[in-house]
């Protein structure tokens, strides 16, 4: 090849040209790609939401401005305009003078500017001089003296300047006043106009701030948006809350408000998501859980730092929602973010998170679903089979079966166990025949298992024979049953009275539905039971109603008449071959060698085999979780521990072949599990001992929702103590009392706060049936124990020692007219203390002793005067003394008991306004607030406070230790007493 000058070689030039073209193309490509990069960085999904929201907000503000402008009073507008016109004229007249004075003001302003600057600079120099002087003196320098001198000079100068400044300011103010006087009307008009358009002005300023104008678009341009964009990520950093990112608690940062822009703004309740206002601002964002301190994810969970839909770990609540949300990830179905252990709470389950911070309370305020769920977990006895930390040691929910044969017979037991719900509504779950794909073979085996369980229970029960009860009157028994309060806890059949809401229904289902009792129990047992429930089962919650023998016989006769006889069919005979096969399978599962197992079975008699299988079956299905059964006193619960179930990771759940049919979430799985406990076995090939064992409770959907919420609240998440709700000592005592109130179903009869008093609906219905006065229902019901409106309850009403005594033995009636009977619960001393302390703490009154006021004789005399004039004894018994011709049942409470029973402070409140404390009471309001309405203005000037105090003082002298002697015979005359 010829050697040319490199630059002139035609081949080289050609190659360079070709490469130039490639270079041009690739450079262009790089430019495009880099632009794409900038765009990709700029184009974030949340910006779209912010723009949309700004448009929404703009539209809304424009509407509001229009409203505000339209709302301005036309007459006032005219008036202001006229004033302004007058002002203009006035200003024109005084134009010359105004101009002159304004010139003066300007001059003074300039002077002020100069002096003020001098003044402030001198101050700065003083600070320097002071420091230098201090240092010079401290270090003993020779120039210390001159430094001090400088400081003094400066201070002198500063004082002079101050005087000058004040002088200038005074002169300027005077000149300004002169101007204002010259154009007085004009200025006032302007002020009035400003006032008139205040609201629309404010809105216009707001509109200007959010308007998507030129500035808005420039601020938010790619690259330029690094300065001060209006589209920006909003974040909240709540105090004391952390995300547990494995070994390193990281402070929570919630960016949810980047898209949920109106979450704390009123007025967007109906706006589409994500712009909807929070459904309960008063309780949450603007209430006791302020958004800037609590944030979002501590309650809702999810990934707070995320700014896109899926990365925020949104959780679908149903398969429908999964399909609807598919668009967010570009798939047919939404899939939750896999890499975050705390997925957002699905709709309806957020309350589960309340329990993290609200610990040690019976009910979390407002958390209906959570409270219901936790209540149901306890009522259905989930804790019997599943260990839940903090729920240990609770009473077993089912009855003691160690004396079962005294109560009923094996035939009934078989039918009941096989299908409890076919007998009557019950919380007893169905253990057998509840597989979704149960085969005939399995059903046969189920019958064998049930038969063997019945045999075991029968053989191990210590039967006590109960003699037949005395003959009773069915109609009288029914009357007693329906009036003394049984219906506060029990129902018969499909009785829906007072069952309208979840909690109301829960009170009336506290005890079993008594439908079919006659087909279940024997009369002798029932007679003994209603007379003394604890005699049969010492742990029962059923209280003693102090029935007389006659009453008990009547009630027994009535209850025995409630038959459900078609339920009773003989149990199928026990199939010995299936039984023996089942025994062998149990033995092999326990690693017994095959030959030994055969030998063991061969060595057992027929009965022994049945009992053996019964014992094994009870052990496998965990009947002892709810019932006391002999031989299982120390057995371990069979279920999985639920203490941290709410933190269980989705990938650790076995969805079996339910995949795709239920939401792929923990709550979705749990819901399916509690509704159909054995469903995850469907299509699986399993040996009998591997099959799922949880029984089916036949829950309603909302019950399952509530239970799932409760389970979701069993979390391993730890909230720092500083962020938790800490109960005060008083609240802790109140909770302890409330716990007993729930356990013993006080709300079945008594209203406490906004809930309870279920019996009132029953009484209403009864009154309606008998054409009685329905309005009397309140007065005929058990008294209210806490008034949520006036916040006054039993604690502030009665003395602790009286309440203690009454709860211990309620036979001493307070309200003689009540047919309802306060039962004897046979509380222990600890329980009595807890309840009395609880009520006192709930009302924040002193415990145990209340101060007793003193009164002078004159006040008492006034009180007696009023007492007589108001004829209190017309309604009230005093120390058992009845007015002639009156029955005790028609009378109001015995006033002789006032000093020992009622707290004086409460008495004052009561006398002022009884219905304020006890709505529907028959006690009239005798002491009006206004003196002119007072019936006896001559006494103590008709002053409410003074009159009430006088009556109270007199009442406190009654009864024991008072002015009126207690008649010893009065107690015996009372009805209902034992």
């Amino acid at each position, binding site marked *: *090849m010829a050697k040319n000058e*490199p630059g002139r070689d035609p081949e*080289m030039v050609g*190659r*360079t040209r070709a*490469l130039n073209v*490639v*270079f041009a193309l*690739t*450079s262009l*490509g*790089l430019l495009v*790609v*880099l632009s*794409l*990069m900038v765009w*990709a960085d700029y184009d974030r999904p949340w910006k779209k939401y912010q723009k949309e929201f700004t448009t929404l907000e703009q539209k809304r503000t424009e509407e509001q401005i229009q409203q505000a402008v339209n709302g301005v009073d036309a007459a006032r507008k005219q008036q202001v305009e006229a004033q302004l016109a007058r002002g203009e004229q006035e200003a024109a007249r005084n134009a010359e003078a105004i101009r002159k004075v304004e010139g003066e003001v300007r001059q003074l302003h300039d002077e002020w500017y100069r002096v003020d600057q001098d003044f402030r600079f001198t101050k700065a120099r003083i600070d320097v001089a002071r420091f230098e002087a201090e240092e010079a003196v401290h270090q003993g320098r020779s120039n210390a003296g001159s430094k001090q001198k400088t400081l003094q000079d400066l201070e002198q100068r500063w004082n002079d300047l101050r005087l000058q400044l004040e002088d200038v300011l005074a002169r300027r103010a005077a000149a300004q006043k002169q101007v204002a006087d010259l154009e007085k009307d004009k200025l006032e008009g302007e002020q009035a106009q400003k006032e008139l358009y205040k609201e629309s002005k404010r809105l216009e300023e707001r509109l200007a701030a959010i308007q998507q104008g030129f500035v808005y678009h420039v601020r938010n341009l790619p690259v330029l948006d690094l300065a001060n964009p209006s589209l920006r990520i909003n974040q909240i950093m709540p105090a004391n809350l952390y995300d547990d*990112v*494995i070994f390193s608690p990281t402070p929570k940062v919630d960016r949810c408000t980047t898209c949920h822009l109106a979450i704390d703004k009123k007025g967007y309740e109906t706006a589409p998501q994500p712009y909807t206002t929070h459904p309960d601002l008063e309780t949450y964002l603007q209430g006791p859980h302020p958004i800037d301190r609590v944030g979002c994810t501590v309650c809702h969970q999810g990934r707070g730092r995320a700014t896109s839909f899926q990365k925020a770990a949104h959780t679908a609540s149903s398969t429908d929602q999964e399909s609807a949300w598919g668009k967010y990830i570009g798939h047919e179905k939404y899939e939750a973010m*896999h*890499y*975050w*252990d705390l997925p957002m709470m699905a709709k309806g389950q957020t309350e589960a998170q309340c329990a993290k911070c609200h610990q040690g309370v019976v009910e979390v305020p407002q958390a209906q679903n959570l409270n219901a769920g936790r209540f149901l977990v306890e009522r259905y006895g989930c804790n019997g089979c599943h260990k839940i930390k903090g729920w240990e040691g609770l009473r077993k929910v089912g009855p003691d079966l160690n004396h079962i044969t005294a109560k009923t017979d094996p035939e009934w037991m078989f039918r009941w166990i096989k299908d409890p719900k076919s007998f009557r509504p019950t919380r007893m779950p169905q253990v057998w025949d509840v597989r979704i794909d149960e085969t005939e073979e399995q059903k046969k085996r189920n019958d064998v298992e049930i038969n063997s369980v019945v045999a075991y229970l029968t053989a191990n029960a210590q039967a006590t024979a109960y003699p037949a009860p005395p003959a009773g009157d069915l109609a009288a028994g029914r009357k007693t049953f329906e009036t003394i309060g049984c219906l506060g806890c029990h129902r018969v059949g499909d009785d829906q009275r007072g069952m309208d809401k979840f909690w109301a229904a829960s009170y009336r289902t506290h005890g079993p539905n008594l439908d079919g009792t006659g087909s279940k129990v024997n009369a002798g047992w029932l007679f003994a039971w209603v007379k003394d429930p604890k005699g049969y089962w010492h742990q029962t919650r059923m209280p003693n109603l102090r029935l007389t023998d006659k009453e008990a016989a009547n009630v027994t006769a009535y209850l025995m008449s409630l038959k459900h006889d078609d339920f009773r069919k003989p149990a199928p005979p026990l199939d010995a071959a299936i039984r023996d096969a089942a025994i062998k399978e149990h033995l092999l599962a326990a690693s017994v060698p095959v030959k030994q197992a055969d030998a063991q079975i061969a060595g057992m008699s027929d009965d022994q085999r049945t009992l053996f299988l019964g014992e094994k079956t009870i052990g496998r299905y965990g009947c002892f979780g709810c019932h006391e059964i002999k031989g299982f006193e120390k057995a371990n619960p069979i279920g999985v521990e639920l203490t941290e179930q709410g933190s269980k*990771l989705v*990938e650790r759940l076995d969805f079996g072949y339910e995949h795709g049919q239920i939401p792929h979430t923990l709550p979705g799985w749990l819901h399916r599990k509690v509704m159909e406990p054995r469903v995850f076995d469907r299509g699986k090939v399993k040996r009998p001992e591997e099959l799922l064992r949880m029984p089916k409770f036949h829950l309603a959907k909302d019950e399952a929702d509530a239970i799932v919420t409760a389970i979701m609240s069993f979390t391993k998440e730890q909230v720092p103590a500083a962020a938790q709700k800490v109960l005060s000592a008083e609240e802790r005592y109140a909770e302890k009392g409330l716990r007993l109130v729930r356990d013993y179903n006080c709300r079945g009869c008594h209203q406490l706060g906004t809930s309870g008093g279920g019996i009132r609906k029953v009484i209403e219905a009864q009154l309606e049936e008998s054409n009685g006065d329905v309005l009397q229902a309140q007065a005929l019901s058990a008294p209210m124990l806490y008034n949520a409106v006036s916040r006054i309850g039993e604690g502030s009403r009665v003395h602790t020692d009286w309440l203690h005594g009454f709860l211990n033995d309620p036979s001493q009636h307070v309200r003689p007219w009540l047919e309802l009977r306060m039962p004897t619960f046979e509380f222990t001393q600890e329980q009595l203390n807890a309840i009395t302390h609880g009520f006192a703490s709930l009302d924040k009154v002193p415990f145990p002793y209340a101060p007793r006021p003193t009164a002078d004789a004159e006040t008492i005399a006034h009180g007696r005067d009023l007492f007589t004039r108001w004829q209190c004894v017309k309604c009230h018994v005093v120390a058992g003394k009845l007015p002639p011709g009156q029955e005790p049942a028609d009378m109001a409470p015995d006033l002789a008991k006032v000093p020992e029973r009622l707290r004086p402070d409460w008495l004052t409140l009561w006398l002022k306004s009884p219905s304020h404390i006890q709505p529907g009471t028959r006690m009239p309001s005798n002491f009006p607030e206004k003196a002119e309405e007072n019936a006896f203005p001559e006494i103590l000037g008709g002053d409410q406070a003074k009159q009430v105090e006088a009556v109270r003082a007199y009442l406190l002298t009654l009864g024991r230790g008072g002015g009126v002697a207690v008649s010893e015979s009065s107690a015996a005359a009372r009805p209902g007493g034992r």
Partner: protein
Amino acid sequence: MGAINAVKDAINFLTAPAIFISLAAVLFFIAVPRRAFWTRRVAMVGTILGALFVGVSMLDPDFALIVKKADNVPIVAMLFLVGFFLWLSLSQAHENDARIAAGEPPVEGTPREAEKTWVWPDLVYTEMLCMVIGMIVLVVWSLALAAPIEEPANPARTPNPSKAPWYFLGLQEMLVYFDPWLAGVVFPSLIIVGLMAIPYIDVNPKGNGYFTFKERKVEIMLFLFGFLILWVLLVLLGTFLRGPNWNFFGPYEYWDLHKLEALNNVNLSEYVFVKWTHLGLPRNMLLRELPGILAVLFYVGVLPGLLAFRHRILGLPIGLKKYYDRLGPWRYAVFVMLLLSMIALPIKMVLRWTLNLKYIIAMPEIFFNI
């Protein structure tokens, strides 16, 4: 649908490690030495078929799920790149071999190719263009497939499957067949040492400055076997075919966490003492492992010597006398140790697939297993 499923099942079956690796090895030995496999047409057909296979298979959701995973994209690219460069070198090598056989110089030796090229534009300008293009590729890639962010690291809950970075998946696959100290420590060290030793062991002066296959047949076959079969193929296997619990999953199979595989593997000592002689396992550990120890001693102690002095063993042309003569005792010793270590992997694989052999020497008492 039935036919499609049958094809999928067949492919799932063929990709099981034993069959897959064996087939690949057979193909390797058939294809690499033959010029007919390295023509343009074959390359074209191969590329089209490969692209077609991946493209059509993407219609299968399970296949697509694994292949589209952002982590796995480089492996797909690697397959095509490895194929391309393999073809490029071997096609040139075979062409040169033909030229040499015809008495012509290799292509690289022709006057035109021997001429020097310019720094500008051939070197500097091209390099700059490559940088620009590289930049474009990287930016587009990072935009199209965002870096996957995973859960916070939790030593108490490792991901399943726990996979090494893609370039180490070959090593991880070795763990199926060897104890960690071998597969994780000794073999990787030997690979690095062995690669460094190549220039000192390789005394064949042929092939300097030009591609050739015939003149460096054994060197190329040995290296490519190690690289393609024992490295690239195992990376591929580890990436696409190993799922939860490190179980094998065919390319069209759903990665079901609950899939089970029976791992009924047996040690050599159990073969000898339990299955064959019915003597029962000796109580003494060394006695028990004697067959394995003898086998290993034979492999590393006797076999090198045996190979050094024979051209053929049992009639097979596997003797290394030629190399012993050419390399001398010291070079030969290093070479043969490296060679035997490399061959140990396929040997162990075959033993595992055919005999369910777990360990040749199994001394868990002292944490020593081979």
